[in-house]
Protein backbone atom coordinates (compact mmCIF):
# COMPACT_ATOMS: atom_id res chain seq x y z
CA UNK A 1 0.00 0.00 0.00
CA UNK A 2 1.18 3.49 -0.70
CA UNK A 3 1.69 5.97 2.12
CA UNK A 4 -1.33 7.99 0.97
CA UNK A 5 -3.62 4.96 1.05
CA UNK A 6 -2.47 4.02 4.53
CA UNK A 7 -3.07 7.55 5.71
CA UNK A 8 -6.55 7.48 4.22
CA UNK A 9 -7.50 4.26 5.97
CA UNK A 10 -5.83 5.12 9.23
CA UNK A 11 -6.05 8.88 9.66
CA UNK A 12 -4.11 8.56 12.89
CA UNK A 13 -0.98 7.39 11.04
CA UNK A 14 -0.21 10.87 9.82
CA UNK A 15 -0.52 12.32 13.28
CA UNK A 16 1.48 9.57 14.89
CA UNK A 17 4.24 10.22 12.38
CA UNK A 18 4.02 13.92 13.09
CA UNK A 19 4.14 13.36 16.84
CA UNK A 20 7.11 11.03 16.45
CA UNK A 21 8.94 13.69 14.50
CA UNK A 22 8.12 16.25 17.17
CA UNK A 23 9.39 13.88 19.83
CA UNK A 24 12.61 13.33 17.97
CA UNK A 25 13.14 17.06 17.54
CA UNK A 26 12.43 17.60 21.23
CA UNK A 27 14.94 14.95 22.23
CA UNK A 28 17.59 16.63 20.14
CA UNK A 29 16.67 19.94 21.71
CA UNK A 30 17.04 18.54 25.20
CA UNK A 31 20.54 17.32 24.45
CA UNK A 32 21.48 20.77 23.14
CA UNK A 33 19.73 22.43 26.05
CA UNK A 34 21.64 20.32 28.56
CA UNK A 35 24.93 21.28 26.92
CA UNK A 36 23.95 24.93 26.91
CA UNK A 37 23.08 24.81 30.58
CA UNK A 38 26.77 24.36 31.31
CA UNK A 39 27.52 27.32 29.10
CA UNK A 40 24.73 29.24 30.72
CA UNK A 41 26.21 28.94 34.18
CA UNK A 42 29.63 30.04 33.02
CA UNK A 43 28.04 32.87 31.03
CA UNK A 44 26.10 34.05 34.03
CA UNK A 45 29.18 33.86 36.19
CA UNK A 46 30.99 36.05 33.69
CA UNK A 47 28.17 38.48 33.52
CA UNK A 48 27.85 38.90 37.24
CA UNK A 49 31.41 38.46 38.44
CA UNK A 50 33.04 40.62 35.77
CA UNK A 51 30.96 43.75 36.29
CA UNK A 52 31.35 43.37 40.05
CA UNK A 53 35.09 43.06 39.77
CA UNK A 54 35.19 46.23 37.66
CA UNK A 55 32.96 48.14 40.06
CA UNK A 56 35.10 47.11 43.02
CA UNK A 57 38.30 47.95 41.18
CA UNK A 58 37.16 51.36 40.01
CA UNK A 59 35.72 52.36 43.39
CA UNK A 60 39.01 51.39 45.00
CA UNK A 61 40.86 53.57 42.50
CA UNK A 62 38.56 56.50 43.30
CA UNK A 63 39.27 56.03 46.99
CA UNK A 64 42.99 56.09 46.28
CA UNK A 65 42.91 59.25 44.14
CA UNK A 66 45.24 62.05 45.15
CA UNK A 67 43.78 65.52 45.54
CA UNK A 68 45.03 66.76 42.19
CA UNK A 69 43.55 63.72 40.40
CA UNK A 70 40.00 64.48 41.55
CA UNK A 71 39.15 65.54 38.00
CA UNK A 72 39.19 61.88 36.97
CA UNK A 73 36.23 61.03 39.17
CA UNK A 74 33.72 61.92 36.52
CA UNK A 75 34.95 59.44 33.96
CA UNK A 76 35.42 56.76 36.60
CA UNK A 77 31.88 57.24 37.88
CA UNK A 78 30.81 56.84 34.31
CA UNK A 79 32.49 53.44 34.15
CA UNK A 80 30.86 52.37 37.40
CA UNK A 81 27.48 53.45 36.07
CA UNK A 82 28.01 51.42 32.89
CA UNK A 83 28.90 48.29 34.77
CA UNK A 84 26.11 48.66 37.33
CA UNK A 85 23.56 49.28 34.62
CA UNK A 86 24.56 46.08 32.89
CA UNK A 87 24.53 44.14 36.13
CA UNK A 88 21.15 45.49 37.15
CA UNK A 89 19.70 44.61 33.76
CA UNK A 90 21.08 41.06 33.78
CA UNK A 91 20.01 40.37 37.34
CA UNK A 92 16.49 41.60 36.67
CA UNK A 93 16.24 39.21 33.75
CA UNK A 94 17.58 36.32 35.77
CA UNK A 95 15.09 36.91 38.59
CA UNK A 96 12.27 37.44 36.14
CA UNK A 97 13.03 34.08 34.49
CA UNK A 98 13.23 32.40 37.88
CA UNK A 99 9.81 33.80 38.78
CA UNK A 100 8.33 32.51 35.53
CA UNK A 101 9.85 29.08 35.96
CA UNK A 102 8.55 28.87 39.52
CA UNK A 103 5.01 29.62 38.30
CA UNK A 104 4.69 32.86 40.20
CA UNK A 105 3.65 35.29 37.50
CA UNK A 106 0.52 37.38 37.84
CA UNK A 107 -1.01 39.91 35.53
CA UNK A 108 -1.58 43.36 36.95
CA UNK A 109 -3.45 45.94 34.97
CA UNK A 110 -2.22 49.50 34.95
CA UNK A 111 -3.09 52.44 32.78
CA UNK A 112 0.07 53.47 31.00
CA UNK A 113 1.07 56.38 28.82
CA UNK A 114 2.77 54.31 26.18
CA UNK A 115 4.79 56.95 24.36
CA UNK A 116 6.19 58.31 27.61
CA UNK A 117 7.03 54.86 28.89
CA UNK A 118 8.86 53.89 25.73
CA UNK A 119 10.70 57.20 25.62
CA UNK A 120 11.79 56.74 29.22
CA UNK A 121 13.21 53.32 28.37
CA UNK A 122 14.97 54.77 25.31
CA UNK A 123 16.42 57.45 27.54
CA UNK A 124 17.77 54.84 29.94
CA UNK A 125 19.56 53.07 27.13
CA UNK A 126 20.75 56.16 25.29
CA UNK A 127 24.24 56.15 26.79
CA UNK A 128 24.70 52.56 25.59
CA UNK A 129 23.56 53.47 22.10
CA UNK A 130 25.86 56.46 22.04
CA UNK A 131 28.84 54.25 22.75
CA UNK A 132 28.19 52.66 19.36
CA UNK A 133 27.24 56.02 17.81
CA UNK A 134 23.69 54.81 17.32
CA UNK A 135 20.75 57.16 17.40
CA UNK A 136 17.06 56.58 18.04
CA UNK A 137 14.28 57.72 15.79
CA UNK A 138 10.95 57.34 17.59
CA UNK A 139 7.80 57.94 15.59
CA UNK A 140 4.48 57.84 17.32
CA UNK A 141 1.15 57.78 15.56
CA UNK A 142 -0.84 57.82 18.77
CA UNK A 143 -1.94 60.58 21.12
CA UNK A 144 0.68 61.10 23.74
CA UNK A 145 -1.70 61.33 26.66
CA UNK A 146 -3.93 58.40 25.89
CA UNK A 147 -3.77 55.67 28.52
CA UNK A 148 -3.38 52.06 27.51
CA UNK A 149 -4.21 49.27 29.93
CA UNK A 150 -1.50 46.66 30.27
CA UNK A 151 0.85 45.21 32.86
CA UNK A 152 3.28 48.08 33.31
CA UNK A 153 6.17 46.13 34.84
CA UNK A 154 6.06 43.43 32.18
CA UNK A 155 5.67 45.97 29.41
CA UNK A 156 8.79 47.78 30.57
CA UNK A 157 10.78 44.56 30.69
CA UNK A 158 9.65 43.69 27.17
CA UNK A 159 10.61 47.11 25.80
CA UNK A 160 13.93 47.23 27.68
CA UNK A 161 14.96 43.84 26.32
CA UNK A 162 13.95 44.70 22.77
CA UNK A 163 15.85 48.00 22.88
CA UNK A 164 18.87 46.35 24.47
CA UNK A 165 18.86 43.74 21.74
CA UNK A 166 18.47 46.30 18.98
CA UNK A 167 21.55 48.10 20.33
CA UNK A 168 23.50 44.88 20.79
CA UNK A 169 22.94 43.68 17.25
CA UNK A 170 23.30 47.01 15.46
CA UNK A 171 26.27 47.98 13.37
CA UNK A 172 27.92 51.16 14.60
CA UNK A 173 26.76 54.60 13.42
CA UNK A 174 23.27 53.57 12.42
CA UNK A 175 19.73 54.34 13.34
CA UNK A 176 17.32 52.41 15.56
CA UNK A 177 13.81 53.17 14.49
CA UNK A 178 10.83 52.77 16.79
CA UNK A 179 7.33 53.16 15.38
CA UNK A 180 4.34 53.18 17.73
CA UNK A 181 0.80 52.87 16.44
CA UNK A 182 -2.63 51.74 17.55
CA UNK A 183 -4.99 49.55 15.60
CA UNK A 184 -8.38 48.57 17.08
CA UNK A 185 -7.22 48.72 20.68
CA UNK A 186 -4.14 46.77 19.75
CA UNK A 187 -0.87 48.50 20.35
CA UNK A 188 1.68 47.97 17.60
CA UNK A 189 5.34 48.69 18.12
CA UNK A 190 8.06 48.03 15.62
CA UNK A 191 11.74 48.31 16.43
CA UNK A 192 14.21 48.08 13.56
CA UNK A 193 17.95 48.12 13.52
CA UNK A 194 20.66 47.69 10.92
CA UNK A 195 23.01 44.84 11.61
CA UNK A 196 23.85 41.31 10.63
CA UNK A 197 20.98 39.89 8.55
CA UNK A 198 19.11 36.99 10.12
CA UNK A 199 18.15 33.78 8.32
CA UNK A 200 14.77 32.10 8.77
CA UNK A 201 16.52 29.50 10.87
CA UNK A 202 18.06 32.14 13.14
CA UNK A 203 14.66 33.72 13.65
CA UNK A 204 13.09 30.37 14.56
CA UNK A 205 15.50 29.69 17.41
CA UNK A 206 15.86 33.29 18.58
CA UNK A 207 13.53 32.94 21.53
CA UNK A 208 15.13 29.79 22.90
CA UNK A 209 16.42 30.21 26.38
CA UNK A 210 19.96 29.01 25.99
CA UNK A 211 20.66 30.20 22.51
CA UNK A 212 22.45 33.14 21.19
CA UNK A 213 22.70 33.42 17.47
CA UNK A 214 25.90 31.94 16.15
CA UNK A 215 29.47 32.33 17.23
CA UNK A 216 30.05 35.31 15.00
CA UNK A 217 27.62 37.34 17.08
CA UNK A 218 28.54 35.50 20.24
CA UNK A 219 32.10 36.60 20.20
CA UNK A 220 31.48 40.32 20.08
CA UNK A 221 28.38 40.63 22.20
CA UNK A 222 27.41 39.71 25.68
CA UNK A 223 24.00 38.58 26.86
CA UNK A 224 22.71 35.06 27.02
CA UNK A 225 19.45 34.79 25.15
CA UNK A 226 17.52 34.90 28.40
CA UNK A 227 15.97 38.27 27.66
CA UNK A 228 14.15 37.19 24.55
CA UNK A 229 12.71 34.08 26.15
CA UNK A 230 11.24 36.30 28.88
CA UNK A 231 9.92 38.69 26.25
CA UNK A 232 8.20 35.92 24.37
CA UNK A 233 6.71 34.44 27.55
CA UNK A 234 5.25 37.76 28.68
CA UNK A 235 3.90 38.67 25.27
CA UNK A 236 2.15 35.31 25.22
CA UNK A 237 0.76 35.88 28.69
CA UNK A 238 -0.58 39.31 27.72
CA UNK A 239 -2.22 37.84 24.63
CA UNK A 240 0.08 39.58 22.16
CA UNK A 241 2.23 38.53 19.25
CA UNK A 242 5.83 39.09 18.26
CA UNK A 243 7.27 38.69 14.82
CA UNK A 244 10.80 39.12 13.55
CA UNK A 245 11.68 39.90 9.97
CA UNK A 246 15.02 40.48 8.35
CA UNK A 247 15.52 42.09 5.00
CA UNK A 248 18.83 43.31 3.58
CA UNK A 249 20.41 43.62 7.02
CA UNK A 250 17.46 45.57 8.43
CA UNK A 251 16.05 43.53 11.31
CA UNK A 252 12.59 44.42 12.50
CA UNK A 253 10.77 43.22 15.58
CA UNK A 254 7.01 43.75 15.33
CA UNK A 255 5.14 43.62 18.58
CA UNK A 256 1.37 43.71 18.87
CA UNK A 257 -0.33 43.84 22.22
CA UNK A 258 -4.08 43.92 22.87
CA UNK A 259 -5.33 46.22 25.59
CA UNK A 260 -5.91 44.11 28.71
CA UNK A 261 -9.52 44.90 29.46
CA UNK A 262 -10.41 44.00 25.89
CA UNK A 263 -8.51 40.81 26.13
CA UNK A 264 -11.14 38.11 26.34
CA UNK A 265 -8.90 35.67 28.15
CA UNK A 266 -8.84 36.76 31.75
CA UNK A 267 -9.34 40.37 32.62
CA UNK A 268 -9.45 41.75 36.11
CA UNK A 269 -13.21 41.82 36.12
CA UNK A 270 -13.23 38.04 35.91
CA UNK A 271 -11.29 37.87 39.11
CA UNK A 272 -13.64 40.07 41.06
CA UNK A 273 -16.97 38.60 39.95
CA UNK A 274 -15.69 35.11 40.35
CA UNK A 275 -17.24 34.61 43.72
CA UNK A 276 -20.56 36.21 42.83
CA UNK A 277 -20.69 33.93 39.86
CA UNK A 278 -20.71 30.88 42.03
CA UNK A 279 -22.93 32.44 44.65
CA UNK A 280 -25.74 32.30 42.12
CA UNK A 281 -25.18 28.58 41.89
CA UNK A 282 -27.60 27.91 39.06
CA UNK A 283 -28.21 24.75 37.06
CA UNK A 284 -24.84 25.03 35.36
CA UNK A 285 -22.92 25.00 38.60
CA UNK A 286 -21.73 21.90 40.31
CA UNK A 287 -19.70 21.04 43.34
CA UNK A 288 -16.79 18.70 42.78
Amino acid sequence: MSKEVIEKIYPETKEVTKLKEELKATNEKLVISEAFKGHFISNITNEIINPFTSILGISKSIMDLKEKQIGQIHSMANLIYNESFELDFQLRNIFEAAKIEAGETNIESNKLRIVNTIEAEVERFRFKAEKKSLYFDTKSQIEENIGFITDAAKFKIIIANLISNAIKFSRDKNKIEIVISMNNNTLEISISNIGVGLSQKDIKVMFDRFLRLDERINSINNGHGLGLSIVSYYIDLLGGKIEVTSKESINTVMLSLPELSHNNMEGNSEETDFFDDFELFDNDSELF
Partner: protein
Amino acid sequence: MNKLPNIFIYPGKLYATKINYHLSTILGSCVAVCLWDKKQGFGGMNHFMLPYWNGQGLASPKYGNIAIDKLIQRMKYLGSKNEDLVAKIFGGGKIMESTSGSFSIGERNIEIAQTILREKNIKIIKSSIGGERGRKIMLNTTTFEVYHKFIEKSKQA
Protein backbone atom coordinates in the same frame (compact mmCIF):
# COMPACT_ATOMS: atom_id res chain seq x y z
CA MET B 1 -20.04 29.52 51.23
CA ASN B 2 -17.71 32.02 52.84
CA LYS B 3 -16.13 34.80 50.88
CA LEU B 4 -12.43 34.04 51.03
CA PRO B 5 -9.48 35.87 49.51
CA ASN B 6 -9.43 34.81 45.88
CA ILE B 7 -6.30 34.17 43.86
CA PHE B 8 -6.63 33.87 40.13
CA ILE B 9 -4.43 31.19 38.65
CA TYR B 10 -3.21 32.44 35.29
CA PRO B 11 -1.95 29.95 32.71
CA GLY B 12 1.57 28.98 33.75
CA LYS B 13 1.00 29.86 37.38
CA LEU B 14 0.71 27.53 40.35
CA TYR B 15 -0.15 28.07 43.98
CA ALA B 16 -0.31 25.96 47.11
CA THR B 17 -1.10 27.26 50.57
CA LYS B 18 -1.97 26.28 54.11
CA ILE B 19 -4.18 29.35 54.45
CA ASN B 20 -7.83 29.06 53.50
CA TYR B 21 -8.07 30.66 50.08
CA HIS B 22 -10.16 30.37 47.00
CA LEU B 23 -8.04 29.60 43.94
CA SER B 24 -9.93 30.17 40.74
CA THR B 25 -9.30 29.87 37.05
CA ILE B 26 -10.83 29.58 33.61
CA LEU B 27 -10.05 26.60 31.41
CA GLY B 28 -10.52 25.78 27.76
CA SER B 29 -8.16 23.19 26.42
CA CYS B 30 -5.91 23.93 29.39
CA VAL B 31 -5.92 21.60 32.37
CA ALA B 32 -5.80 22.45 36.07
CA VAL B 33 -4.63 19.87 38.58
CA CYS B 34 -5.78 20.45 42.16
CA LEU B 35 -3.85 18.66 44.88
CA TRP B 36 -4.92 18.26 48.47
CA ASP B 37 -3.26 16.90 51.57
CA LYS B 38 -6.08 14.87 53.10
CA LYS B 39 -4.32 14.58 56.47
CA GLN B 40 -3.43 18.23 56.99
CA GLY B 41 -6.26 19.74 54.96
CA PHE B 42 -4.57 22.14 52.59
CA GLY B 43 -4.09 22.25 48.88
CA GLY B 44 -3.05 23.95 45.69
CA MET B 45 -3.71 24.30 42.00
CA ASN B 46 -1.84 24.70 38.74
CA HIS B 47 -2.96 25.66 35.24
CA PHE B 48 -1.08 24.41 32.21
CA MET B 49 -1.59 24.97 28.50
CA LEU B 50 0.51 22.31 26.80
CA PRO B 51 1.48 18.76 27.76
CA TYR B 52 5.27 18.77 27.47
CA TRP B 53 8.03 21.32 27.54
CA ASN B 54 9.57 21.02 24.10
CA GLY B 55 12.91 22.55 24.98
CA GLN B 56 11.89 25.94 23.57
CA GLY B 57 11.76 29.03 25.71
CA LEU B 58 11.60 28.95 29.48
CA ALA B 59 10.89 25.67 31.27
CA SER B 60 7.82 27.15 32.93
CA PRO B 61 4.72 25.54 34.46
CA LYS B 62 2.93 26.44 31.24
CA TYR B 63 3.77 22.83 30.42
CA GLY B 64 2.05 19.90 32.11
CA ASN B 65 5.10 17.83 32.96
CA ILE B 66 6.69 20.81 34.72
CA ALA B 67 3.49 22.20 36.28
CA ILE B 68 2.51 18.91 37.94
CA ASP B 69 6.01 18.16 39.25
CA LYS B 70 6.31 21.68 40.62
CA LEU B 71 2.93 21.53 42.36
CA ILE B 72 3.83 18.22 44.01
CA GLN B 73 7.17 19.72 45.05
CA ARG B 74 5.40 22.75 46.53
CA MET B 75 3.02 20.53 48.53
CA LYS B 76 5.95 18.54 49.84
CA TYR B 77 7.77 21.72 50.70
CA LEU B 78 4.75 22.68 52.81
CA GLY B 79 5.06 19.36 54.61
CA SER B 80 2.90 16.91 52.68
CA LYS B 81 3.75 13.28 52.29
CA ASN B 82 3.17 11.69 48.92
CA GLU B 83 0.72 9.12 50.31
CA ASP B 84 -1.51 11.83 51.77
CA LEU B 85 -2.02 13.57 48.44
CA VAL B 86 -5.20 13.28 46.39
CA ALA B 87 -6.07 15.05 43.15
CA LYS B 88 -8.94 16.49 41.17
CA ILE B 89 -8.45 17.41 37.55
CA PHE B 90 -10.40 19.79 35.33
CA GLY B 91 -10.41 21.10 31.78
CA GLY B 92 -8.93 19.73 28.59
CA GLY B 93 -11.93 20.55 26.46
CA LYS B 94 -11.83 20.19 22.71
CA ILE B 95 -12.08 23.87 22.06
CA MET B 96 -10.11 25.10 19.11
CA GLU B 97 -11.78 24.26 15.82
CA SER B 98 -8.45 23.85 14.09
CA THR B 99 -7.40 20.82 16.12
CA SER B 100 -8.94 17.95 14.26
CA GLY B 101 -7.98 14.33 14.55
CA SER B 102 -7.41 12.12 17.51
CA PHE B 103 -4.73 14.08 19.34
CA SER B 104 -6.18 17.40 20.35
CA ILE B 105 -4.25 19.52 22.82
CA GLY B 106 -7.00 19.12 25.41
CA GLU B 107 -6.83 15.34 25.31
CA ARG B 108 -3.07 15.34 25.48
CA ASN B 109 -3.21 17.68 28.47
CA ILE B 110 -5.62 15.33 30.25
CA GLU B 111 -3.48 12.34 29.40
CA ILE B 112 -0.29 13.83 30.81
CA ALA B 113 -2.10 14.75 34.04
CA GLN B 114 -3.47 11.23 34.44
CA THR B 115 -0.15 9.61 33.54
CA ILE B 116 2.01 11.66 35.87
CA LEU B 117 -0.42 11.36 38.79
CA ARG B 118 -0.59 7.61 38.27
CA GLU B 119 3.22 7.39 38.19
CA LYS B 120 3.38 9.31 41.45
CA ASN B 121 0.66 7.16 43.00
CA ILE B 122 -1.63 10.10 43.56
CA LYS B 123 -5.26 9.13 43.27
CA ILE B 124 -7.61 11.25 41.17
CA ILE B 125 -10.74 11.34 43.29
CA LYS B 126 -12.85 13.54 41.03
CA SER B 127 -12.60 15.12 37.63
CA SER B 128 -14.49 17.05 35.02
CA ILE B 129 -12.54 16.72 31.80
CA GLY B 130 -12.91 16.74 28.04
CA GLY B 131 -16.11 17.71 26.29
CA GLU B 132 -16.50 20.73 24.09
CA ARG B 133 -17.05 23.51 26.59
CA GLY B 134 -14.80 25.63 28.73
CA ARG B 135 -14.93 25.67 32.51
CA LYS B 136 -14.72 28.08 35.37
CA ILE B 137 -13.54 26.56 38.61
CA MET B 138 -12.91 27.76 42.14
CA LEU B 139 -11.10 25.66 44.73
CA ASN B 140 -11.38 26.01 48.48
CA THR B 141 -7.87 25.13 49.62
CA THR B 142 -8.97 23.91 53.06
CA THR B 143 -12.05 21.82 52.25
CA PHE B 144 -10.98 20.78 48.73
CA GLU B 145 -14.43 21.65 47.43
CA VAL B 146 -14.34 22.79 43.84
CA TYR B 147 -17.10 24.97 42.44
CA HIS B 148 -17.45 24.21 38.79
CA LYS B 149 -19.34 25.83 35.98
CA PHE B 150 -19.36 25.41 32.22
CA ILE B 151 -18.86 28.62 30.24
CA GLU B 152 -19.49 30.13 26.84
CA LYS B 153 -16.93 29.83 24.07
CA SER B 154 -15.85 33.46 24.05
CA LYS B 155 -14.54 33.37 27.61
CA GLN B 156 -12.23 30.40 27.44
CA ALA B 157 -8.52 30.21 27.93
